């Protein structure tokens, strides 16, 4: 199903980009014959379906069509690999940190329900959800990098860990807030359930109870909120990369669409990568879901 969806998406993207009005060649500088020749060279004179089959076969071999930018002839694949690596590292860092911190805050809040710590966590999560992450980002950068110049102002790939603290932290704020809020509510619900009361009545307490009965059940819905968060990271990355000057996929995409002219090859390649990542992550979370909750795995087996 995922593969089919991805295939459909690539097809739609491809057709959309091929039928877009306009001409990728500078008409005033090229004669009609030159354009025709160039079109034949790039394979643009063939029917769209044939072009699509060609593109797909190249894609399966691991290259994106002709593999170069329309404007400066820069090869797509190596550039994209570097950018992907940067974005990926920061994305993973922030999602790991965000989830861990969010879980921690949520668990603390649920265990201290109604007390001061709970209130504090609620305020943090409301602010984190409501205030856009790039507001935080700009302020963090202004104070920690400019006013007291502790952290580097811009991202620097040679000092990866140190210079990615700020972007990853600001990217993860939304994740922290959402995860904390969700964890707290789920924990409270599970802690009031009959089976936890039963376990308590049987003499189970403390860490064992938390790990075996509460957390395991409370975490299932939390996994579902992580999925949209991962996706949000993609968009968040565009802003982060602009603010911290990171050479990443978000910046690449912005350059491709907001620059002088739209670079179709880049847009197509990046769109395919984004969609594939997105669908891949969804699939991964589905599998993760089954690992955490045996009921889902078992019913799925029965159905099959």
């Amino acid at each position, binding site marked *: 199903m995922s593969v089919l*969806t991805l295939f*459909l*998406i690539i097809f739609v*993207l491809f057709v*959309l*980009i091929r039928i*877009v009005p306009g001409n990728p060649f500078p008409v005033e500088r090229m004669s009609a014959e030159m354009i025709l020749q160039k079109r034949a060279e790039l394979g643009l004179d063939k029917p769209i379906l044939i072009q699509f089959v060609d593109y797909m076969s190249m894609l399966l071999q691991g290259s994106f069509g002709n593999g170069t930018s329309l404007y400066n002839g820069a090869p797509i694949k190596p550039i994209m690999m570097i950018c992907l690596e940067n974005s990926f590292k920061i994305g993973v860092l922030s999602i790991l940190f965000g989830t861990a911190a969010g879980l921690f805050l949520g668990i603390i809040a649920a265990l201290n329900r109604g007390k001061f710590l709970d209130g504090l966590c609620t305020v943090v999560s*409301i*602010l984190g*959800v*409501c*205030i*856009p992450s*790039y*507001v935080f980002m*700009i302020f963090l950068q*202004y104070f920690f990098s*400019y006013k007291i110049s502790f952290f580097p102002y811009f991202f620097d790939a040679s000092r990866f860990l140190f210079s990615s603290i700020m972007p990853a932290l600001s990217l993860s704020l939304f994740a922290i807030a959402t995860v904390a809020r969700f964890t707290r509510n789920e924990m409270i619900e599970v802690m009031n359930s009959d089976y936890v009361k039963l376990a308590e009545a049987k003499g189970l307490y403390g860490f064992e109870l938390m790990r075996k009965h509460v957390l395991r059940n409370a975490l299932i819905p939390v996994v579902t909120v992580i999925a949209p968060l991962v*996706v949000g990271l*993609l*968009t968040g990355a*565009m*802003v982060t990369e*602009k*603010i911290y000057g990171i050479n990443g996929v*978000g910046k690449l*995409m*912005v350059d*491709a*669409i*907001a620059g002088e002219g*739209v670079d*179709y090859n880049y*847009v197509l390649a*990046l*769109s395919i990568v*984004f*969609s594939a990542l*997105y*669908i891949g992550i*969804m699939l991964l979370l589905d599998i993760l879901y089954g690992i955490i909750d045996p009921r889902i795995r078992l019913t799925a087996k029965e159905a099959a």
Partner: protein
Amino acid sequence: MEKNYTPTADDFEFISDRDLSVDLNFASQGYWKGVAIHFFRSKLAVAGVIIVSLIILFAILAPIFSSYSYQEIVSVNSAAGKEIVAKSLPPQFGDGSAQNLFSDKTFLFGTDDMGRDLWTRTWQGARVSLIIAFVAILIDMIIGTSYGLISGYFGGHVDNILQRFIEIAGSIPTLVIISILAIFMEKGIGLVIVSLLLTEWIGMSKIARAECLKLKEREYVLASRTLGAGSFHIIFKQILPNTIGPIITQVMFSIPVAIFTEAFLSFVGVGIVLPQCSLGSLIEAGFNNITVLPYQILPPISVLALLMLGFNLIGDGFREALAPKIENM
């Protein structure tokens, strides 16, 4: 004694003066009245309403009453007859304390690096952002709700096909949709609205469908059908009014998303183009000067944050009010 005596109010009297307290939670009351009472009891929700109404009020009034227009470049002629532009001035209040040629002029938020009044521009930007959000979400609401209700009501093959379509449409990342749109359309308000239209309706339709699945088994729907009502009459006259609550909640949560999307698009440079302004484009302009002129980014970014906070608080309050939990009563 008269046979047809009509009792008047004077015939009765209270047995005592004590307050007759009525239990608001359990007394019989209209649905919306109950929702309103619960809503206004939440302090956070009221704070949200106040924040949002103040910003809307300013967004409507400030550009009208300002002495400058939002694209006007303020300048004076100096003694030498040269035109001097009020570039990048910090906030000043027109009381003559500012040490510049514009000391008699008021710039509450200062001016930007082109010499335009930031007070006017901020509120004009808030206006543009709000208009975009409201228009986009309103259309989304109409499309999403109809789609979800039809899918949920008819079920079977119709539902299956419509849901597969949503599944595929929903697995295209927003970023990709925006990029493709950027190829087809001119940058500007239109691009922002269309990209919001294409992405936000899915959530709306999921909620409408879930509500519809719950409601279509109710007796009153059966009664209507028995009396010969057509499907579309049942969907839009019988079911739709009962799904309004959850849909409004979703709208309240979608508006900040829309405002944020606009700000984000304008910030990365595919949204609003100059001399038009929105909160996003103002933040972008301020960000470019943040180390030198930090006061330029403060007003738009605060308005953006407050606006999103306000709408989220209202949404939260509304959700609570629609489904009050026992513990909150």
